[in-house]
């Protein structure tokens, strides 16, 4: 053995370590510079041709920084009643009647109250409640909301089984079931009816399955008074000055990693009344069985969870599209009618230059698949711009920001800026929609021509009424087109916003639909609109028709109205304006199809119209009373009336305690939990791991160097 060897090894080791560190430091310094230069945020590369001053953040101190993190404490739902839903929908012509059975099963040994917040179509007329306890059935009665709540609370404290169905929003309802015994199951059956949507030659039925987490703007309010008749709700949000009932519309959402809950079965019996070209379910797998020439039985595939809207589409054979329909019902000496008429298609209008404001929701709820859909839709919409048009893009989350300070003429340069801007959009933060809406409607326009606002959002907000007020007050000559994005959009918001905005709404539920759905919207934008629609019912007839003001009709949209009269006239005359010219039509109302439930649809339309007036008119008490009267007369659930069912005999003795639990719901498909509910930030870097790994590698290299030298020498000796 050569004694010099260990010395050289030590020397070379030291040498190696020193060079390692020196090079390491040098390299790191170079990397610092390099990465500092290259580590531009994603947005910056896209905005290469724009200075920071071009970007316009709209500062409104009263709106910014509110609402994102309005949490109540943690909730334990491991012992909450377990829910299962069975849905049966019968569609006859244009009317759908649905039965929703909610099974509340108590998995625990204690007594429970289950509170379930769920969605229904926004025009659903809920008129029946039944509570099944074993073999017994208890029929629910409609009561004024306060009264119903009082009766329910009374029964609850007396240990009687009771259930209550209340309306929070036109499309959000709450079922409460009290005194579910240990390991017992109670079934709540709700029935509702509504009109299927008919647009651009296609019939559409939506059944929403989950209330998506709503953003609650505003400052928290502390309850002034708490009493039994005033249920404050037990959602994840606290009530705020802008959303007074936030706690009632925010059911708890467990992390999706914990698995899907709330299974749904569904059966649809469809009798369209004409032969069909095709039937499709947009987002779910279904089994289709043809029963007769025009009748079909559709069954939802097993293992479906309530985590996204169900949509059924059916299209008549070419030439069989109905152009007019009349359904009637006689009830209590009154005639009720549902009238549908499709105005004849107009030729494409001459192309006027327009001003288009695109508004895109980039809040946390849009994160995931929704933002992808919204961006794709926005890019398509940008491609529709023509020279002579002016445009701007507004994005909003906790803040509102616009691409240009003022709408810019369409040029290759501005289009490129816009495309880059859209590409760089990321979804995070709150949903402060009001400033964005104001900015979109308020921007002064140089031309007095066509002004369109295309609004892409999932509508996951709790302050709908405030937003509707803004639209009504500030619409001016703009037209608002809502594009509902994602798996569970707020259909009430989309619909009403488009109504007040004198535009239309479009739904996009998956990326594959973007092209097709946007094309329908572009067609509508290109064709003349039928406006100022007036109805003449004939002399000496008092007809109460709802809606009172017929909305503007875009291409493919039918006139839809309900009427009540002591006798309906033979013919209905309709006039309107299209491209500046008067348009006339008439429709025969004799020999319509008899159908039960038309009166209910009429009452629902009336309530909807009155609810709109409630927000804008002064004589609120009067209107409120009219809503209550209509709802009570037609046995309907409304904002001011609820259905309540109470068992006669007490089931729970006073000594046993009752625990109230809000029932958890799924996070809608495609949503990202952390982006909505937040997460404590990631606050560690990998630096130590890198350093340790680097050291280990160096040491291994050294050891290897030492041993391999020995090894090769010995090996060479042997050879």
């Amino acid at each position, binding site marked *: 053995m050569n004694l010099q060897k260990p010395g050289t090894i030590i020397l070379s080791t030291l040498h190696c370590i020193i060079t390692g560190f020196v090079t390491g430091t040098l390299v790191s310094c170079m990397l610092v510079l390099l990465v500092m230069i290259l580590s*531009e945020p994603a947005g910056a590369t896209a905005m290469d041709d724009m200075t920071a001053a071009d970007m316009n953040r709209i500062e409104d101190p009263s709106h910014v920084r509110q609402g*994102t993190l*309005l949490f109540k404490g943690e909730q334990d739902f491991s012992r909450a009643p377990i829910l299962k839903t069975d849905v049966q929908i019968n569609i006859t012509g244009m009317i759908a009647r649905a039965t929703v059975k909610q099974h509340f099963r108590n998995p625990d040994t204690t007594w429970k109250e289950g509170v379930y917040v769920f969605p229904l179509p926004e025009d659903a007329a809920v008129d029946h409640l039944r509570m099944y306890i074993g073999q017994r059935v208890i029929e629910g009665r409609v009561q004024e909301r306060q009264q119903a709540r009082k009766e329910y609370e009374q029964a609850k404290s007396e240990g009687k089984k009771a259930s209550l169905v209340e309306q929070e929003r036109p499309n959000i309802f709450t079922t409460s079931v009290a005194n579910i015994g240990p390991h017992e199951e109670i079934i709540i059956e709700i029935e509702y009816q509504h009109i299927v949507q008919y647009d651009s030659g296609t019939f559409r039925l939506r059944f929403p399955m989950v209330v998506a987490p709503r953003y609650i703007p505003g400052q928290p309010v502390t309850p002034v008074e708490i009493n039994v008749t005033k249920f404050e709700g037990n959602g994840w949000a606290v009530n705020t000055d802008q959303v007074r009932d936030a706690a009632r519309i925010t059911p708890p959402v467990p992390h999706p990693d914990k698995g899907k809950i709330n299974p749904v079965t569904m059966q649809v019996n469809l009798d369209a009344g004409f032969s069909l070209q095709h039937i499709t379910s947009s987002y779910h797998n279904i089994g289709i069985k043809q029963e007769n020439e025009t009748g079909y039985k559709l069954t939802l595939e097993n293992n479906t969870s309530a985590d996204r809207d169900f949509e059924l589409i059916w299209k008549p054979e070419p030439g069989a599209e109905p152009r007019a329909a009349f359904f009637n019902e006689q009830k209590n000496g009154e005639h009720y009618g549902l009238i549908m008429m499709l105005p004849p298609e107009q030729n494409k209008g001459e192309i006027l230059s327009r001003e288009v404001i695109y508004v895109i929701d980039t809040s946390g709820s849009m994160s995931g698949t929704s933002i992808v859909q919204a961006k794709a839709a926005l890019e398509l919409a940008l491609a529709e711009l023509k020279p002579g048009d002016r445009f701007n893009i507004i994005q909003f989350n906790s803040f509102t920001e616009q691409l240009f300070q003022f709408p810019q003429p369409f040029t290759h340069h501005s289009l490129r800026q816009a495309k880059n801007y859209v590409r760089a959009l990321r979804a995070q933060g709150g949903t402060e929609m009001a400033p964005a809406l104001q900015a979109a409607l308020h921007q002064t326009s140089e031309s007095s021509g066509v002004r369109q606002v295309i609004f892409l959002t999932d509508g996951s907000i709790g302050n709908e009424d405030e937003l509707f007020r803004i639209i009504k007050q500030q619409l001016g000559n703009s037209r608002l087109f809502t594009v509902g994005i994602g798996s569970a959009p707020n259909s009430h918001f989309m619909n009403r916003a488009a109504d007040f905005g004198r535009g239309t709404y479009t739904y996009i539920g998956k990326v594959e639909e973007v092209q097709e759905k946007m094309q329908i919207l572009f067609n509508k934008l290109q064709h003349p609109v039928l406006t100022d629609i007036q109805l003449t019912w004939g002399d000496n007839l008092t007809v109460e028709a709802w809606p009172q003001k017929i909305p503007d009709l875009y291409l493919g949209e039918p006139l839809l109205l309900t009427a009540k009269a002591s006798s309906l006239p033979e013919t209905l005359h309709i006039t309107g304006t299209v491209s500046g010219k008067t348009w006339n039509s008439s429709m025969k109302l004799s020999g319509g199809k008899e159908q039960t439930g038309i009166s209910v649809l009429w009452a629902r339309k009336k309530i909807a119209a009155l609810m709109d007036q409630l927000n804008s008119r002064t004589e609120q008490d009067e209107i409120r009373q009219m809503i209550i009267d209509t709802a009570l007369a037609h046995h309907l659930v409304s904002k001011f009336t609820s259905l309540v069912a109470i068992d006669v005999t007490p089931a729970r003795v006073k000594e046993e305690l009752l625990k109230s639990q809000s029932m958890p719901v799924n996070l809608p498909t495609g949503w990202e939990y952390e982006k909505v509910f937040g997460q*404590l930030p990631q606050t560690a870097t990998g630096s130590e791991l890198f350093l340790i790994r680097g050291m280990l590698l160096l040491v291994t290299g050294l050891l290897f160097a030492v041993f391999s030298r020995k090894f090769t020498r010995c090996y060479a000796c042997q050879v």
Partner: protein
Amino acid sequence: MPVRFKKLIVVGLLVVLPLCGVWQIGLGSYIHAKAILAQFLLETAWSETLKGHKEVKPWPWADTWPVCRLTVPRLGISRIVLAGASGSSLAFGPGHLFGSATSGEYGNTVIAGHRDTHFKFLQELKTGDAIQLQTSNGGNIRYRISEIRVIHETETHYLARTDANILTLITCYPFNAISAGGPMRYIVIATPEITNGKMI
């Protein structure tokens, strides 16, 4: 042939292993270098902010800006806090959580930082220690630490709004964990010192 082949592998490893080591050490030191260097650049941006400029970007392509300065007199610590607690801003300084109360505003002010760089000092803090926040209008708020605890990352109610004015500092826990991404967090809660009914 086999001998030459073996030699090739040996030589290859002799070159590759130290190179990889150097690369990894480089990455590790880069994180620290960036964290330290950025704070120097932020000083300039912060003094601009104190002069009344809004959202001063420390370097032209930054997507964040300084919002306040956090100091701990006992430890001689001073950190410029950035807007937002996204990964990209936390690399340069502690981040003020988007949506929480801004410094000096009524409510819960939440600031997060990396446990191995800017917020490493959190482990040395004790209940009763003073923390100061310098706000963008030049004002100073003095806080006293009232509570220190270890929580799980899902306990987001620590971010919730509060009726009271508090300061919440968050970092990852344990401090000496080797890899990032653990579920535990270390939080420090401080309440403002009040004199004559006014915050000082």
